[in-house]
């Protein structure tokens, strides 16, 4: 009985907070026309996100590319097929790995700081102060952050992809005996030769990272706006923001790949 009641309450809470996030996203979209007034905040936020996330993204991306090359390389070696390593590394980096690791790092660095910042504002009545001055916190705080991540996440993803492919090339050459020429020809060809300007993998990856960026920022702002009860509440908000962001990144990543490769 208790278990049932607990489960129902848990589900109700989850649905409630999901509803809040969706509502926030819609309100943010409705504020879009006001972006010219928020240009400075937008740039500040873009810059902050870049500075916070760039160094660690580059390191992680290089290792991720190396791991990818290693994992596929081990299997390809058994079939004597390592000459397609460049192609495989480049495409999976762009489609899956690049967007995924970039988003996870943005969630941990920028998402957490968004939640902490807005959460602190909430518990120290700064959000109330904005309301009292008839300034909509969604327009003033959420909009520039969501847009900043919507821009920065794809941008950082492109960088991650490039660095990751480079990381893969080192493993390919050092450990799997694939010549750099072969690797890079495979990688570049796979990313340039297609009917469209760029192959589907790149577009899907960029779309993914755009959606991830919006999701991270919205979820983190929502967690901050719902914070209450002093420093402890801010800590909980940060935890919620990172947990929900990572959860969403995984689930949305799956759904998007599935949609583009198995449904259409």
């Amino acid at each position, binding site marked *: 009985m208790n278990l049932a009641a607990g489960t129902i309450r848990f589900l109700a809470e989850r649905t409630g907070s999901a509803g809040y996030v969706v509502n926030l996203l819609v309100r943010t979209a409705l504020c879009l026309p006001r972006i010219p007034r928020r240009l400075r905040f937008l740039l500040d936020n873009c810059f902050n996100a870049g500075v916070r996330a760039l160094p660690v993204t580059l390191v992680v991306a290089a290792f991720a590319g190396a791991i990818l090359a290693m994992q596929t390389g081990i299997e390809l070696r058994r079939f004597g097929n390592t000459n397609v390593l460049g192609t495989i590394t480049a495409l999976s980096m762009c489609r899956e790995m690049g967007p995924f690791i970039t988003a996870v790092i943005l969630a941990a660095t920028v998402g957490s700081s968004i939640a902490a910042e807005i959460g602190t504002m909430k518990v*120290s009545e700064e959000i109330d102060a904005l309301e009292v*001055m008839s300034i909509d916190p969604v327009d003033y705080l959420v909009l520039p952050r969501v847009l900043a991540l919507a821009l920065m996440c794809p941008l950082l993803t492109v960088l991650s992809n490039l660095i990751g492919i480079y990381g893969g090339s080192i493993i390919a050459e050092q450990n799997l005996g694939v010549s750099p020429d072969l690797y890079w020809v495979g990688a570049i060809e796979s990313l340039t030769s297609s009917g469209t300007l760029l192959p589907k993998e790149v577009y899907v990856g960029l779309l993914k990272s755009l959606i991830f960026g919006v999701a991270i920022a919205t979820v983190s702002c929502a967690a901050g706006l719902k914070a209450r009860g002093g420093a402890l509440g801010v800590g909980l908000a940060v935890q919620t923001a990172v947990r929900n962001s990572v959860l969403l990144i995984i689930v949305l990543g799956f759904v998007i790949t599935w949609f583009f490769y198995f449904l259409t």
Partner: protein
Amino acid sequence: MIELKNLHKRLGGRDILKGLSVKVPKGMNFVLMGPSGTGKSVTLKHVIGIFKPDLGSVHVDGQDVPAMDRKQLMALRKRMGYLFQNGALINWLSVADNVALPLKEHSQLSRSEVDDRVHEVLKLVGMDHAGKQEPPEISGGMKLRAGLARALVTNPEYVLYDEPNAGLDPIISEQIHELIGEVRDRLSVTGLIVTHSRACATQCGDRIGILEAGKLAVEGSVDEITASDHPLARAFMGQGSD
């Protein structure tokens, strides 16, 4: 006129307000006193529509505040100033930018007009030297005064002051009390002042109400409360209190 009638509010599982009624006529300063945690700040937040009452009514100039839609609420808030208990300055804006915020967002003033007005109110609260400083690097009393400047910068008809002299030294306290009195006299601003200080109540108040257990335990003119022998009135306004 601000009129709260039979206000009830439950927060965090506890009944905070239980039938509070307060009437603040135009051009008057009403001082709300009471022990910590009795819901004084909560009361102010009802007046400006941050909280909605569970029961009872809030009227400002005859308009029903809880029933307002977003647009009406914005219109009302533009006519009100609110000093938060700890200033509630936006942490990443300088003092001057904080004070300029309501003007920049809503008025058609040019940049230099905004700067002039900001300088003027900062001077009123004795903060004209600190305009460039950021909230993390100034003291609690300075934050409060910057918050007061922000509440006054738009020339509101109503000002809600939440502990306008908390953490101020006696000299600056005195100045702030004078300022609050002056704002009422010169601009006929209606004020609702939350304070624990007898000096503040006598210097800027017209009427005093003392909140206890969710409603006013005593209410009257400053002289009446000072002379009253109600235990709460004596505790807050009697000789030796402050």
